[in-house]
């Protein structure tokens, strides 16, 4: 296996070296191939996602197939523009020159994707890597086996198999892949594995893009909103929590920050709206994904075993191990030191933090009182924790909006909605600190897999004679003026009208 893998990768590198993947026709053909794959295999994709995650086909289209088609169309439309060299402005030292940035592919790319959006997170990076003209290996997650094998079996029929390969496997295969030299690695997953990948990449000086997660907070400002706006806000929160792979998404809302007096209204409204979306028996609704596997099911179950946490459940909480189903669940004020509030939840459990914050955490977060009295206190609360991938705030307060943008740090900030930043091609998608390194989506995907080569051209006609030794103060003065773009000074020195200011000498 190890040997075969080495051989396969060597052949891919050979293929890249021949230069095929650099051609615009090759890139176009592959992007179109991907489009055909999505069109012709749509039903199979929906089936695989349903098998792996119980994902409803509308959700599968909204979050995976549909977004991929949109990205492909954008890449096909803008490819020529992206591939064009960009002219750079020049200073006077480089008289009669021309400078430009030439985008060139990096070479051999490794994409290690994750199980929660097994199609989207495998193919979205692939679109960027292909558009940039690279050879690519995708390792889908073994935890979504139906999707992984669909990619491995069906994708080769649509793409150039010499330059694009799907390699299936678990951590052992991942480990083997990491032993080889890549020109870029894009990984989606946990910070723990992200660290392993980056230290392996260091051995070959391979740059990495790490798409990690973190606890993404959502702030719900009370204000005196009209009832219908509250409904819209809470609909969006429910959609972003339970409606995106049952909370198993890196940009899913992890917990909600609400002012104490407002919290009971929020809980009541949520209960009503969850019922409206998922019915009286959410398990039968087929509109909510199940938990990926037993391991994660038990992890989520464990989060609730702590009696102090269990006592905080105000809605839901039922689970079925056989069907790996967990009901949309709401908790109010679980202890901040519990695993529920220290680990990324990645499931359909939504803690609402309103206050009653233990004293030990107060000092750390710098809060002045035991409650989240003012929604503004949430800024300190957020800043006392690792930087999240996304920060959501539902508010009409412009001052708060401004303060959140300038005083907190996260991969992205979204006001009055959630998740949709993922669909915006013009915004970079990526984390900061614990939530990741690098960014992609749209043109940023192209940039992630591109080296912008600096190219300067000159003619051999002219030369500033004062560029060369033997050095003297006269030449120094001339060069200084050139560097400062001081044409007038330059003229004066050349004409001998300006005295050199240099007085110290080399002994």
């Amino acid at each position, binding site marked *: 296996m190890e040997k075969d893998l080495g051989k396969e990768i060597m052949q891919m590198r050979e293929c890249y070296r021949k230069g095929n993947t650099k051609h615009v026709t090759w890139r176009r053909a592959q992007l179109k191939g991907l489009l055909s794959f999505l069109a012709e295999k749509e039903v199979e994709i929906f089936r695989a996602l349903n098998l792996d995650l119980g994902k409803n086909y509308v*959700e599968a289209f909204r979050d995976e197939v549909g977004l991929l088609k949109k990205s492909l*169309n954008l890449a096909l439309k803008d490819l020529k523009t992206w591939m064009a060299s960009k002219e750079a402005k020049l200073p006077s030292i480089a008289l009669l020159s021309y400078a430009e940035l030439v985008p060139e592919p990096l070479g051999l790319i490794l994409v290690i994707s994750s199980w929660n959006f097994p199609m989207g997170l495998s193919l979205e990076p692939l679109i960027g890597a292909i558009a940039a003209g690279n050879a690519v290996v995708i390792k889908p997650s073994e935890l979504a086996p139906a999707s992984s094998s669909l990619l491995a079996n069906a994708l080769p029929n649509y793409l150039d198999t010499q330059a694009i390969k799907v390699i299936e496997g678990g951590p052992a295969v991942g480990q083997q892949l990491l032993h080889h030299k890549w020109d870029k690695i894009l990984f989606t997953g946990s910070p723990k594995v992200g660290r392993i990948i980056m230290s392996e990449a260091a051995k070959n*000086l391979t740059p990495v893009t790490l798409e990690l997660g973190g606890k993404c907070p959502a702030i719900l400002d009370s204000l005196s909103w009209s009832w219908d706006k509250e409904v819209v806000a809470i609909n969006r929160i429910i959609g972003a929590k339970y409606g995106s792979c049952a909370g198993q998404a890196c940009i899913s809302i992890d917990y909600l920050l609400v002012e104490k007096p407002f919290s009971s209204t929020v809980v009541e409204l949520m209960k009503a709206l969850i019922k409206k979306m998922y019915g009286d028996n959410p398990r039968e609704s087929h509109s909510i994904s199940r938990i990926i596997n037993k391991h994660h099911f038990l992890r989520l179950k464990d989060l609730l075993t702590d009696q102090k946490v269990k006592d905080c459940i105000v809605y839901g909480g039922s689970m079925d191990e056989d069907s790996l189903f967990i009901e949309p669940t709401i908790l109010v004020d679980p202890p901040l030191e519990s695993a529920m509030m220290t680990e990324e939840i990645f499931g359909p459990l939504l803690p609402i933090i309103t206050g009653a914050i233990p004293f030990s955490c107060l000092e750390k977060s710098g809060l002045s009182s035991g409650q989240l009295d003012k929604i503004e206190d949430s800024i300190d609360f957020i800043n006392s924790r690792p930087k999240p991938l996304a920060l959501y705030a539902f508010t009409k307060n412009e001052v708060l909006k401004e303060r959140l943008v300038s005083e907190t740090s996260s991969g992205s900030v979204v*006001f009055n909605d959630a998740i949709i930043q993922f*669909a*915006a091609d013009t915004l970079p998608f990526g984390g900061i600190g614990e939530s990741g390194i690098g960014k992609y989506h749209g043109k940023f995907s192209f940039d992630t897999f591109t080296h912008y080569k600096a190219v300067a051209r000159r003619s051999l006609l002219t030369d500033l004679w004062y560029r060369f030794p033997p050095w003297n103060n006269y030449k120094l003065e001339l060069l200084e003026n050139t560097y400062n773009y001081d044409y007038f000074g330059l003229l004066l020195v050349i004409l001998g009208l300006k005295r050199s200011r240099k007085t110290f*000498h080399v002994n």
Partner: protein
Amino acid sequence: MLMENKAENKAVFDAESAKEVVKELRDSFVTGKTKSYRWRVTQLKAMLKMLDENEPQIVAALRDDLSKPEFESSLYEIQMLKNSCRLALKEMNHWMMPEKAKTSLTTFPSSAEIVSEPLGVVFVISAWNYPFLVSLDPVVGAISAGNAIVLKPSEMAPASSSLLAKLVADYLDSSCIKVVEGAVPETSALLEQKWDKILYTGNGRVARIVMAAAAKHLTPVVMELGGKSPVIVDSDINLKVATRRIIAGKWGCNNGQACVSPDYIITTKDYATKLVDSFKCELERFYGNDPLESKDLSRIVNSNHFDRLSKLMDEEKVSSKIVHGGQRNEKNLQIAPTILLDVPVNSLIMKEEIFGPLLPIITVDKVEQSFDLIHSSGGKPLAAYLFTNNKKLKRKFVETVSAGGLVVNDTAVHLAIHSLPFGGVGESGMGSYHGKFSFDAFSHKKAVLYRGFAGDALLRYPPYTPGKLTLLQALLSGSIVGIIRALLGWFWA
């Protein structure tokens, strides 16, 4: 300053001291002080003043460390830095402005922008060859992006290192910008800490250590490394101009001890002799009969590097290939500009980065073969140069040669162009800086999306139905007709 304080109660700068330094800077950063436009401007102006008022001291330190000619010090270190400061002062308010981003129908109605925010506390590890430039140029970028900074200059240029420590403490805000002097133990202690970005200038071996340390904290890195930067010389050129420009980039840049210096030349067999003759003539004009007497050449940094270079010259199959120069003075650590013709490709001098005043010339039958030669050497160098008037050759060069930067008909000048990113690819590094790229290297580009409450489509929410799918398909494809059709269909359904 810092080292002096520490020296009183602590003998060594250990992990504990490193932790303290980082904590102090993080505390300053959290206050938001460095984020203000005013702080950034004040620091950049202070740096300009520092460079203005201390030019003789800087020149003297560089003379101590490298015998660097005053001309080179003044121009390539002080002037370049001043230019960076001036550019940042002039452009910073534009750089800091949020960038508007277009939004699509899918997320309508909304507005979006990309906000540049400082990363936090950053660590700059610099090198000895341009001790001021490669230390302070990244610092200019880190300041303009609003970060707190620790700078660790190279211990191999001790006079420069201690002058940097003194000047930075005297002129810049020491609660946010610090210099820590030291060698491997100090650097290791610092690398154990959590940083928000590390910019390292140096070699690939240490870069791997730095990146592995960074991985533990998920810290992004910029690696400014080197490599064997080739020069291809075609035969249809203005030989005198080409020769001079190669000399300026090789011996005129710290006697070849620069990461963008030409490492070796590839030319045709027929042209090689002409080229060598031209080098002999121009080198004598620039550096005189006895280059070891010339004040216009830097010396080798230390005896380790002197020995390393001597070994490259003295290898059996190489020493006989010297066609010009070869003089050296071990006591003064001097090596004269040396040209070697037709060295074997498997010799040491063709395997490692030379980083000194030796310039091997490799010959090929046809100039086009140069590209294969560069490819077969494997690595992607920091720079590659071509001298030619042949348009086809230029195009092929730009298309096929992969390097951090390419220059046609000159050497090393791309470094001075602020509108070009400076950085390598593959073995020559990752990430880039200079000008606006420095600001970007030390900024986080935060995506910010503003939405109102109107225009919410129920189709986003469960319960999911086939009608919702059709409408979503239309929405995501951006087709107006499709949307209308789907809407009508949906209402009828």
